[in-house]
């Protein structure tokens, strides 16, 4: 970790966030999302832009300096993720920075470290085949491995964001000892049902059935399923929450501008108290959500025992709130909000996709309940 004094670190981070904001404003207008949504590009992001963003140090923001990153930690990564969410940047920050990086940094094996260096350098896009939310609730994995010769034979299917496009896939698989994380070259895995998602990103169901992989594909040693998923459900969920909050604040700002511009009954509609109070309530909720998010990210950086609870508290809140702010945004825009031309709808759809990552908000509410000791007994028949 870097040893700069706190004030210098804060200045460095502020400068980085501001330059990222300018970069996204110049290079990534919301219309890019519309191009990918309506276009038939195989890949839903721009590889050249991704490399440029890596050169600016953004893909490695949370990666230790020894491995080629900026070593600024998860809270700093959260700030950057918020800024990219404001512009709905299509480059694979969600998969590679929010999900893959926490998984890879949880291992200190050479294989993981080589991949981390590639992420920092912008030479690898890594997608993560995270179990579905209902599998997370059940505590099961969707892909399993059985020993076969010098390696494993896999079975099962799992969904991954940014496929096609990713170079490598990280997947947690069930083994007799619990869980192993495997890293597999993306072209080796047949994808079925590749699709354009509602927010213009690409994603696919990956078919692992009958796939043979070497033992070297595994990272670290076997762990329990819950330990194996922890990087996703704690650091990953916190970073996705940062994306959701950045997105929610931006769609709120867009809606506020509309309230100040649109006139009906001879006045701007933002002068009507019924609408003012709806906006003010969202403002309150966004401010409270930011408080939780900041505490969650800081707890992850400190390795605080409360990090899991705070991360789930953050995801449970921001996952629900982002979609609700965007829904209110559409309503307050009236008919215009339903049009493809208005940006508010892009945020609405992006809010749903981001909520699906790393366990949706209801999964995290259940996790929080369990961590708080609020569990329901079996119901009598």
């Amino acid at each position, binding site marked *: 970790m870097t040893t700069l004094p706190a004030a210098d670190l804060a200045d460095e981070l502020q400068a980085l966030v501001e330059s990222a904001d300018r970069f996204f404003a110049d290079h990534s207008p919301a219309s890019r999302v519309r191009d990918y949504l309506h276009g038939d590009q195989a890949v839903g992001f721009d590889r050249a832009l991704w490399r440029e963003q890596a050169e600016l140090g953004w893909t490695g923001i949370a990666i230790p300096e020894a491995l080629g990153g900026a070593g600024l930690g998860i809270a700093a990564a959260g700030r950057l993720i918020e800024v990219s969410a404001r512009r709905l940047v299509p480059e694979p920050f969600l998969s590679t920075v929010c999900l893959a990086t926490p998984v890879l940094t949880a291992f200190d094996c050479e294989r993981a470290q080589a991949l981390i260096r590639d992420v920092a350098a912008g030479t690898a896009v890594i997608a993560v085949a995270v179990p579905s939310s209902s599998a997370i609730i059940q505590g099961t994995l969707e892909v399993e491995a059985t020993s076969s010769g010098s390696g494993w034979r896999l079975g099962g299917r799992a969904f991954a964001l940014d496929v096609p496009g990713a170079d490598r896939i990280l997947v947690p698989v069930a083994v007799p000892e619990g869980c192993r994380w495997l890293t597999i070259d993306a072209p080796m895995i047949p994808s079925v049902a590749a699709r354009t998602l509602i927010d213009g990103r690409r994603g696919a169901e990956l078919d692992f059935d009958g796939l043979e992989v070497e033992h070297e594909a595994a990272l670290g040693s076997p762990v329990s399923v819950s330990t194996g998923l922890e990087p996703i459900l704690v650091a990953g969920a916190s970073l996705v929450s940062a994306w959701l909050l950045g997105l929610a604040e931006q769609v709120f700002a867009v809606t506020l501008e509309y309230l100040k511009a649109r006139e009906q009954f001879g006045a701007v509609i933002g*002068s009507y108290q019924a609408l*003012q109070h709806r906006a003010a309530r969202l403002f*309150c909720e966004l401010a*409270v959500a930011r408080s939780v998010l900041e505490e969650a990210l800081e707890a992850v950086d400190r390795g605080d025992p409360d990090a899991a609870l705070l991360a789930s*508290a953050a995801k449970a809140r921001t996952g629900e709130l982002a979609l609700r702010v965007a829904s209110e945004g559409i309503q307050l825009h009236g008919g215009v909000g339903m049009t493809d031309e208005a940006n508010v709808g892009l945020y609405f759809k992006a809010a749903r996709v981001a909520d699906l990552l790393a366990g949706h908000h209801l999964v995290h*509410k259940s996790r929080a309940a369990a961590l*708080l*000791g*609020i569990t*329901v007994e079996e119901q009598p028949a």
Partner: protein
Amino acid sequence: MSGTAVDGNHLFNGRGSTDPADLRQELRAWLEQNCPASMRTPMPADEVPNGGAQGPSPSNPDTFTWMRRAAERGLTLPTAPEAYGGAGFSEDQAAILADEMQRINARPPLLGSGALLLAPMLLRFGSEEQKRQHLPPIAQGEVRWCQGFSEPGAGSDLASLRMRAQPDGDEFVLNGQKTWTSFATVADWIFCLARTDPDAAVRQQGISLFLIDMRTPGITVRPIRLINGDTEFCETFFDDVRVPAANILGGENNGWTVAKALLLEERRATPGWTLAAWPFPLMDVWREQVGKSAAVAERVTDSELNRLALEAALRRAARLANAGSPEAERFVNVVKVWFAEYQQERGSLVTLLREWRGAGWAGAATQGDLDVTRAWLTSRALSIAGGSTEIQLNIISKHFLGLPTS
């Protein structure tokens, strides 16, 4: 005065030191020695240290011991200068004190409108004479203040207040009625808004804030009974009450400015010290449930997640305030709205789950049960008093979101 602390001296050695650790160490040792054990427990409603001579005595004598010891060192008004009974602490030093008190769960040694609301206004707007007259008795807990702002026709729309103050020589003659004057029956003094210029072009500009001795002839107080059984709120009638012109705080016709600052202080001060004062033991109640349903579990989880969020928001509010961030001010309104709804929801859930134990009013019921139920009933006032939730939302939309007035 030298920088040496001796018994009976206000000074803390570490106050003048460049190293805040010195002050922290000294405060920690002093608190350990002087804060009675019973003052390090959650505070029941009948032990609130409001000060004043007329009130019902807090039932625990340690309340007075703690108040007196803290006052001797200026710690009841830590940021007020020593000359006025304070400790002369900077904001940073006061934060260290708050920190150290929190460390041992020390109760505030003194609460009430005098210390929390009026004292900061006296420091900011008061004349030298007013500060010398009023601050030391507040710091010592000798004088209890009440607030005369609302009127029957001026609640949320406070600027429409009608109480009249007519000049007569070097006095003003006050006539009118105030309502929601909490603890007026036991207060020694009242700070009170009255209209000194009925012809002002803008109605906010014709108002002054008067400091009035409650023993002045012509003042009549009548308690109002509330849904929670409390009678602390009163109606206060003014009938030809003569007040010296020198008792106006912040200048004639400048009362609105002082009142706005005071209401902001009220919003800022309220959640902090009441968070511990709301006895809603939700997790205990959940554990006591014989059967645990999914619908109840979800409400309990929501409330716990809201508690986590509110605590995070309160910590963030304190951080922003300490850093002097402009965001701090808008956060006060956010926290007020949230705090009220959180407590109302939690109180409602706890009393519901306690079933008949949660619905007792008097008679065969334990004091603990009654306290929880009364607190739930009281919680309905949290979204009304100190600027209703609707007023908070108006302030947020106009001042922070920049939405225009219709």
